[in-house]
């Protein structure tokens, strides 16, 4: 064996090759084949463009895209506001508290999404625990609608996506050198001033990556909105599923999926630019 080949084998980068090969063969190639095969069914290139324009400009898709983006935006903001304080505490805790909080974040994360969604339905229903508490305490005189509307979807999805936000923020906050804050205090900054002018700007790239990752995951969500939403809360993934499974209209499913994929890839490109992946891995 020559020296150069040995060098290649010693490069730790080689370890990622099986993972990439798996992704390409198991995901990218079948996906590309699906799009090519299905779109070919429509006919010539002009026909495909025509069909794409009709599908994407149809009222159902326009409405679904609007609902999808609106819900994803609300969920992103809510996970940010709920997740930032938790991540802050996590990044500034001693070992025991850290383990405890992390445990509380990670365990639900590994529980099936369906199970978690059904649990929320038990809590939020018309005769659910929350409404019974409100009725029993006399705060309301008839049940309030927490489920089968946008509010239900937003509550369910915020809960499911919260760990992604917290862990991303945590990674960014962990990289902040605590001596910066000590220096700020030593120079006479109040706690609030130091937080607003030192900590917050330093954690900003974490906020941006956290928001992007949650938004990207949220626009493709299916189970939670399908179960917890109301009659008119149709998200784009639900429309795609209906085209694939019920009407067997695969060409329009392919066009809607391409639309979703394009939006996701654009957001991912932004994510890639703002996030220093190496720093997130802690190397």
């Amino acid at each position, binding site marked *: 064996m020559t020296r150069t080949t040995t060098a290649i084998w010693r490069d730790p980068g080689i370890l990622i090759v099986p993972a990439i090969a798996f992704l390409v063969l198991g995901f990218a190639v079948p996906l590309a084949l699906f799009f090519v095969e299905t779109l070919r069914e429509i006919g010539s290139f002009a026909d495909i463009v025509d069909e794409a324009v009709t599908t994407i400009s*149809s*009222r*159902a898709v326009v*409405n679904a895209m609007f609902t999808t983006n609106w819900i994803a935006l609300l969920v992103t903001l809510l996970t940010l506001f709920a997740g930032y304080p938790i991540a802050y505490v996590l990044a500034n805790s001693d070992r025991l508290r850290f383990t405890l909080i992390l445990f509380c974040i990670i365990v639900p994360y590994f529980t099936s999404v369906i199970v978690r969604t059904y649990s929320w*339905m*038990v809590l939020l*229903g*018309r*005769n*659910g625990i929350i409404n019974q508490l409100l009725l029993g305490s006399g705060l309301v005189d008839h049940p309030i609608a927490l*489920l*089968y509307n946008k509010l239900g979807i937003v509550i369910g999805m915020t809960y499911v996506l919260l760990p992604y936000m917290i862990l991303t923020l945590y990674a960014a906050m962990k990289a902040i050198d605590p001596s910066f804050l000590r220096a700020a205090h030593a120079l006479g900054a109040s706690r609030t001033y130091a937080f607003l002018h030192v900590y917050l700007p330093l954690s900003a790239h974490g906020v941006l990556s956290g928001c992007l990752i949650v938004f990207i995951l949220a626009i493709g969500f299916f189970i939670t909105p*399908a*179960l917890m*939403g*109301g*009659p*008119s809360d*149709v998200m784009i993934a*639900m*429309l795609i*599923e*209906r*085209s*694939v*499974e*019920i*009407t*067997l*209209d*695969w060409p329009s499913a392919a066009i809607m999926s391409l639309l979703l994929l394009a939006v996701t890839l654009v957001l991912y490109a932004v994510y890639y630019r703002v996030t220093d992946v190496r720093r997130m891995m802690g190397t």
Partner: protein
Amino acid sequence: MSGRSTGRFGRRRVLGSLAGASVALPYFWTRRAEAAQQLTVRTPGGAYDEVKRATVYEPFQKATGIEIVPVAATVAKLLAMHRSGQMEVDLIDTGDDVLLQLDQAGALEPLDLKKFKRTNPDDIEATVKHKAFVGSFNYAMLMGYHTAAYPKGKEPKSWAEFWDIKAFPGPRTLADMASGAPDLEFALLADGVAMDKLYPLDIPRAFKSLSRVRPAITKFWDTGALSAQMLADKEVVLAALWSTRLGVAIDKGAPLGAQWNQNAVLGQAYGIPKGSKASEAAFTFIDFSLSPEIQAAWLKAYKAIPVNQKAYPATSPELMDPDTKVPWTKSKGYVRDIVWWSENRTKVNAAWSKWLAQ
């Protein structure tokens, strides 16, 4: 991660697992080689298979030595298997509307029921016999109600009454497009169309009628589990749902009732896909599971109506109309026209999206 902890997943451990895998490998190979003794069946899974294992699969294995291996596959997956020429199931057990779609795509082998050895094909209901698939049981889309809101006898007796949200207040649920078909027939029945004049459905009139009941609809359900859950939790007090789901919920003690007037008769069916690696065993299984004794034992437990008329005497009493001594589906129902639905599903889907956006 520290260097020490990687030691736990070190070379020895990996080699050990590899050795274990190599011991297990021949086992999988032999199982593949004995594939003639197995029949891979697409089924709805879950509780459906639990009931069927004890009442059909195990007796079948005892009688023929063939083991049933249930697998999950949606219609899209089955169609994809057919198109790619890699059919991975030997028999399909699903709704007759799905089998019709597969048949229209050329994915099914024709069935010759005259070759049955255990079942007399003449005992099978004429409505469930098709060129390439045959019904295995019937059930209904019917009206269910919560008895705390409507005691037995006080519930709506027709879809017109179900639509009357002033006389019969309370939240309701109907089927979503995502369940396969929204309840356009019930909307037309509520609007005064006669049960034998439903097809071809007047789509605009049906949606106009649906708009009248929409203010009382909490949610349109997309899976059978959700419909029964919503009714049992009293999220809704009136529902259109599947008789099997309702029957099982009532059996478990949920305070629910069934109103069979104007029910839509639906069917579960068998079809053998082209490319089935065990089409003969699949045919034997169809023959076996349609025989009167097997139908009786299985469908009594599953709360469904046999397609073999010889099995009627053993049918659950709550599924039989006491006045006419035939199943409710026959005395009070109409058969959903799966051909109309397969020709119009795309059109209904577009109308449904448009209507929801209003």
